[in-house]
């Protein structure tokens, strides 16, 4: 980078990086909070699925937790902050009758030094994600018959599930688990809202350097981004090692035949955590909503003295333009992603309907399992060189990269599940491959396509770091502006931004549910598919 005076290769950026005060603590914080959040999420998901699989309650758990998936990380984090802060809703509900507090207590709950609140904020978002991934993997693991076989051999529900279903489900959710690990270790928005500040986690500090007017900090930022990548790879190795050790130990326990028949304790944890996770996100959104309409609101009152539309009116014009920008970029990237993925699927499907093995498709997943900060720095520099930084097109290209893997994930399984004989019949009736695509496969895929679109929309609307870095402050969305409000601490405004941010993706999922019902209202076999 000659423009910045860096004309030779040197270790100077690394020396600068390690000279930054508290950098090792930042790195350690990233590693530990990320591992802890992932471990807790995985354990809770295992307990929840083991406890509820095949019961009446299972559909209910699924229905309660799946909408949480579309809530952006930032909105969920704000909601949690508004719930558990010293002046938050929980403290208000319990004061003064239980706690005796007449003023908010002087406790460091948000931004706590150990990152415990950060871990909590990550867990409430990752549990719904991993849960739905696990549920999707159950049929392939022949879960219900396997669990029944284990239980008739005398095993308790949870211990039987962990010994027989888990070993078959886990390989299928490994990719999402590693994605959660990478995200948790390198998240910027959640760490900004909930995480420690003295020092902050590594990704937050690197982002700060990249946004600094002093461009020479970019060298140090690049070294930091590389360190982040190394940390994530190290965590992957650690996790992989843990998997192996646990598998070994588990096999020894299986050989010993311990039944674990009394499992009320893990089942109680599963029930409580499912309620706590959904409760935290929903209640958080409710408090965001209350704050956005709040007039004067004194501490320990549970509700404001008056409600007003003032905050909404005050920011109306700004909100409109932010929503327009965000939706424009989201819709564009989703449409292009759908076209690319469907084209790829169609091209790799042979005439008999059997899918080709998608070669090199793992490349698509890279943005999911690498820390965003590590490759966004490179992309930012590329965008500056190509003049795309700060343009809508640049941000759109970057969003497409993140939307694509989710759209591919949501579409490839339903596509492969299409009955191949339908295509065969269509072909023998004289249809060419593209006629089969338009007239048979595409209509049958309506529901998965809409779901994939809703997922892609939610992903794009929630993207913080890519928008921030490639947008360079000139392309702003609800998400970047909401996170930027953290510093100011205007709760009413945060309420407005957070609530709106959470509502937009819901609309997408609502349409994904409603449209197929309307279109297929006279097609019973299509209804059954949903």
């Amino acid at each position, binding site marked *: 980078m000659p423009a910045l005076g860096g004309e030779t290769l040197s270790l100077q950026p690394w020396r600068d990086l390690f000279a930054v005060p508290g950098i090792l603590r930042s790195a350690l914080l990233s590693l530990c909070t990320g591992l802890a959040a992932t471990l807790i999420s995985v354990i809770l998901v295992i307990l929840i699925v083991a406890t509820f699989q095949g019961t009446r309650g299972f559909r209910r758990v699924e229905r309660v937790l799946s909408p949480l998936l579309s809530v952006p990380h930032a909105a969920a984090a704000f909601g949690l902050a508004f719930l558990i802060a010293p002046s938050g809703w929980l403290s208000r509900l319990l004061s003064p009758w239980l706690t005796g507090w007449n003023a908010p207590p002087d406790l460091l709950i948000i931004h706590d030094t150990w990152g415990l609140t950060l871990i909590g904020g990550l867990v409430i978002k990752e549990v719904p994600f991993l849960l739905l991934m696990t549920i999707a993997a159950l049929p392939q693991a022949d879960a219900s018959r*396997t669990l029944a076989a284990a239980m*008739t051999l005398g095993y308790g*529900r949870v211990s039987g599930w962990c010994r027989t279903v888990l070993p078959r489900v886990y390989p299928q959710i490994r990719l999402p688990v590693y994605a959660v690990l990478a995200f948790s270790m390198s998240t910027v928005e959640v760490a900004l809202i909930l995480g420690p500040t003295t020092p902050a986690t590594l990704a937050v500090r690197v982002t700060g350097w990249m946004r600094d007017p002093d461009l020479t900090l970019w060298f140090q930022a690049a070294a930091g981004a590389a360190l982040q990548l190394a940390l994530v790879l190290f965590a992957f190795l650690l996790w992989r090692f843990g998997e192996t050790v646990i598998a070994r130990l588990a096999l020894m326990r299986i050989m010993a035949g311990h039944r674990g028949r009394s499992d009320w304790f893990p089942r109680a944890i599963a029930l409580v955590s499912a309620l706590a996770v959904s409760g935290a996100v929903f209640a958080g959104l409710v408090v965001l909503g209350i704050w956005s309409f709040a007039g004067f609101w004194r501490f320990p009152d549970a509700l404001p003295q008056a409600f007003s539309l003032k905050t909404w009116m005050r920011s109306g014009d700004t909100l409109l333009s932010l929503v327009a920008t965000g939706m424009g970029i989201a819709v564009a990237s989703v449409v292009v992603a759908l076209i690319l993925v469907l084209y790829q699927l169609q091209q790799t499907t042979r005439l008999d309907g059997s899918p080709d093995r998608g070669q090199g498709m793992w490349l698509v997943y890279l943005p999911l399992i690498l820390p965003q900060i590590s490759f966004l720095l490179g992309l930012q520099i590329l965008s500056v060189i190509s003049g795309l930084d700060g343009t809508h097109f640049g941000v759109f290209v970057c969003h497409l990269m993140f939307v694509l893997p989710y759209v591919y994930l949501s579409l490839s399984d339903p596509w492969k599940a299409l009955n191949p004989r339908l295509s065969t019949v269509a072909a023998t009736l004289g249809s060419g491959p593209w006629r089969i695509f338009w007239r048979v496969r595409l209509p049958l895929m309506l529901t998965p396509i809409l779901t994939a679109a809703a997922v892609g929309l939610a992903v794009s609307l929630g993207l913080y770091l890519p928008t921030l870095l490639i947008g360079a402050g000139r392309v702003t969305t609800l998400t970047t502006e909401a996170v930027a409000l953290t510093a100011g601490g205007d709760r009413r405004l945060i309420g407005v931004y957070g609530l709106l941010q959470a509502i937009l993706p819901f609309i997408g999922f609502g349409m994904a549910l409603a449209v197929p019902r309307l279109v297929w209202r006279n097609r019973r076999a299509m209804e059954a598919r949903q």
Partner: protein
Amino acid sequence: MTSGGDLEFRDLTLTRDGQRLLALSVTVAPGETLSIMGPSGSGKSTLLAMATGTISPEFDTSGRIILGGRDITALPPQDRQVGILFQDDVLFPHLSVRGNLAFGLHPSVKGRKARMAAVDEALAGVGLAGFADRDPATLSGGQRARVALMRVLLSQPKALLLDEPFSKLDAGLRDQIRNLVFDHARAAGLPVVLVTHDPEDAKAAGGRVITVGG
């Protein structure tokens, strides 16, 4: 193995969406085999799921199930001591043959050596000595059926349920496995309930036959 006592279905009914699928009241003595015949969809497999406690929630049931004088109707599956063989063997594909049998072997057999010996003895008993470390996926259908049988017997059940376990076997093999299962069940003194749509199965079982549905 302990002889468990009678398996009694007392005034059982099975209903789905308000439609009565079957009603049954019968007692099976230790060593006896009761065959229940009926077309698919008649609820005969669901009856077994009711006995194992793994029935899916869309069914409504009433009546009591008593095993060896103990009312097991409300017990969770793991506490019922009711073993079952399914149409497919449901061997766990992530465990070796030894792992599958050790999984089933009752926890009262303690110590690594004793447990391994029990597994080896069981394998030898069905002509599969030396198969312990094999991957179940490499076994033939008949071999898998024998492993599944030994897995359930090693768990020391007090009753054995058979959910069309012979229907997927080749005709030549079917007789052989059928005799093996009935011989072992009789030797263990277990009350056996067989669900099938094959009259040959019921004939080989040699006990009472009840026809449901259709």
